[in-house]
């Protein structure tokens, strides 16, 4: 093990180096650029043995990764924002074909108005594409997820592509001390990719075929089951990861001071740390505050969220997203989890951080006091609220 001072992008690149992908195809876009720059340097200096393919667009980047995966290779790509949206057609091909590609997405605002800073509207708009979606909080978790991602995606029960999301700039460009495992450790954790879902000259197959109304729904159901199966595979993978690397993760969600909490903020990504600090401060004032950090949006942690939120007085969902004309998408998902569990708890939505706008400790403290006193259903931090945030 070695210890380095790395940005989120660089930490993720180190994790991918340890995972030994055979094909990397990517097109640069801010704030993702550095992860693919570092990987291309690793290929150049020989510390990573992979085919690095310079493509002409994001659509080609993922198409190339699909082709590589269909040849039985471990494939990696990375993108952000408009690049992810340009990939959208291929996202569905990758998921439907059950190709366990790993992609790093640097969460960034979408145009217009043009903006390169972080929010989560790009990846959350693609929740229905059939990919596993993780949201890292810090650079160490980013590296560890990079290494775990292939184990999870390639598991025969899952066979589903994996999108690892890192908050643009706040995480991709912020430097932290990161522990880097050795190749020996990584190799003992992650075996080479083996699959029957590939071109085989000795045993010719139809690949990526059509399926009519008589069977199409069965393929879709099986893809759904594969993504759901990722939940238990994530738990198993994290257990084995802890045995080898000594770092522990908590599955689809991470709870902080939730056991006796009256008021909980549910959020995802890098803002969770500030929420925990604020919860500590309020605890010092006698307010029972807690935090649930969603680590995986797909598969969605329905049971985990309902188990924690069903006993609180009120909860807030804080997210860097708005589904125009309704509310934040994470809020919709969280509410559905509670509804399915038969829980009746008042929840409020807080939309913040759009286009990289700072969410301050004071903003978070106000969220706790607002939900304790009752507020509008949907609130735009810095603007105001209403039933739809209007």
């Amino acid at each position: 093990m070695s210890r380095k001072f790395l940005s989120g992008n660089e930490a993720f690149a180190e994790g991918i180096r340890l995972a030994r992908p055979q094909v990397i195809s990517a097109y640069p876009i801010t704030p993702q650029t550095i992860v693919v720059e570092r990987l291309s340097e690793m290929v150049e200096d020989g510390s990573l043995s992979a085919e690095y393919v310079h493509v002409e667009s994001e659509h080609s980047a993922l198409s190339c990764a699909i082709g590589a995966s269909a040849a039985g290779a471990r494939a990696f790509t990375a993108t952000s924002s408009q690049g992810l949206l340009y990939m959208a057609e291929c996202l569905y091909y990758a998921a439907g074909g059950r190709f366990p590609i790993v992609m790093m997405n640097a969460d960034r605002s979408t145009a217009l108005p043009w903006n390169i800073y972080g929010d989560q509207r790009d990846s959350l708009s693609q929740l229905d594409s059939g990919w596993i979606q993780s949201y890292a909080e810090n650079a160490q978790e980013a590296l560890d997820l990079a290494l775990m991602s292939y184990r999870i995606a390639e598991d025969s029960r899952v066979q589903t592509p994996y999108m690892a999301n890192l908050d643009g700039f706040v995480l991709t460009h912020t430097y932290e001390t990161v522990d880097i495992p050795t190749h020996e450790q990584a190799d003992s954790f992650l075996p080479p990719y083996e699959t029957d879902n590939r071109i085989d000259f000795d045993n010719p197959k139809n690949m990526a075929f059509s399926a009519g109304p008589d069977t199409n729904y069965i393929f879709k159901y099986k893809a759904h089951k594969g993504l759901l199966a990722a939940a238990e595979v994530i738990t198993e993978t994290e257990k084995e990861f802890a045995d080898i690397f000594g770092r522990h993760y908590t599955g689809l969600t991470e709870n902080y001071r939730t056991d006796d909490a009256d008021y909980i903020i549910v959020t995802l990504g890098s803002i969770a740390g500030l929420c925990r600090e604020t919860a500590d401060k309020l605890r010092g004032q006698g307010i029972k505050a807690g935090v649930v950090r969603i680590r995986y949006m797909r598969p969605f942690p329905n049971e985990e969220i309902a188990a924690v939120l069903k006993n609180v007085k009120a909860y807030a969902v804080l997210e860097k997203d708005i589904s125009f004309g309704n509310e934040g998408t994470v809020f919709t998902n969280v509410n559905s989890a509670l509804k399915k569990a038969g829980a009746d708890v008042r929840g409020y939505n807080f939309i913040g951080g759009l286009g990289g706008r700072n969410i301050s400790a004071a903003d978070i403290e106000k969220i706790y006091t607002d939900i304790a006193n009752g507020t509008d259903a949907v609130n735009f931090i810095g603007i105001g609220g209403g039933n739809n945030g209007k």
Partner: protein
Amino acid sequence: MRPYVREKTGFTFEEVPENTCFEAGYLTTVNSGWRSIRPVINAAKCVGCEQCYLYCPDGVIAIQGGKAVIDYDFCKGCGICAKICKIGAIEMEAERK
């Protein structure tokens, strides 16, 4: 060589693969239902020159006993064979069913 066509109708859940990868040449159904006109070979005129065989975009024409024959289970009725036949041995006729 005509590919194997599965005779059974309907599928069980288990028969459908987990991913879009399955043995090559496994056809689940015949596929010609939308054909409105069909090419008909005049065997007396046909000289077996193989031009229709080469041009057929669906690969449904074979030469048997020196004459062209058409697999109507997969012919879509595009008419390219009739167009390409230099001696007028193929005519397009309306489907009657």
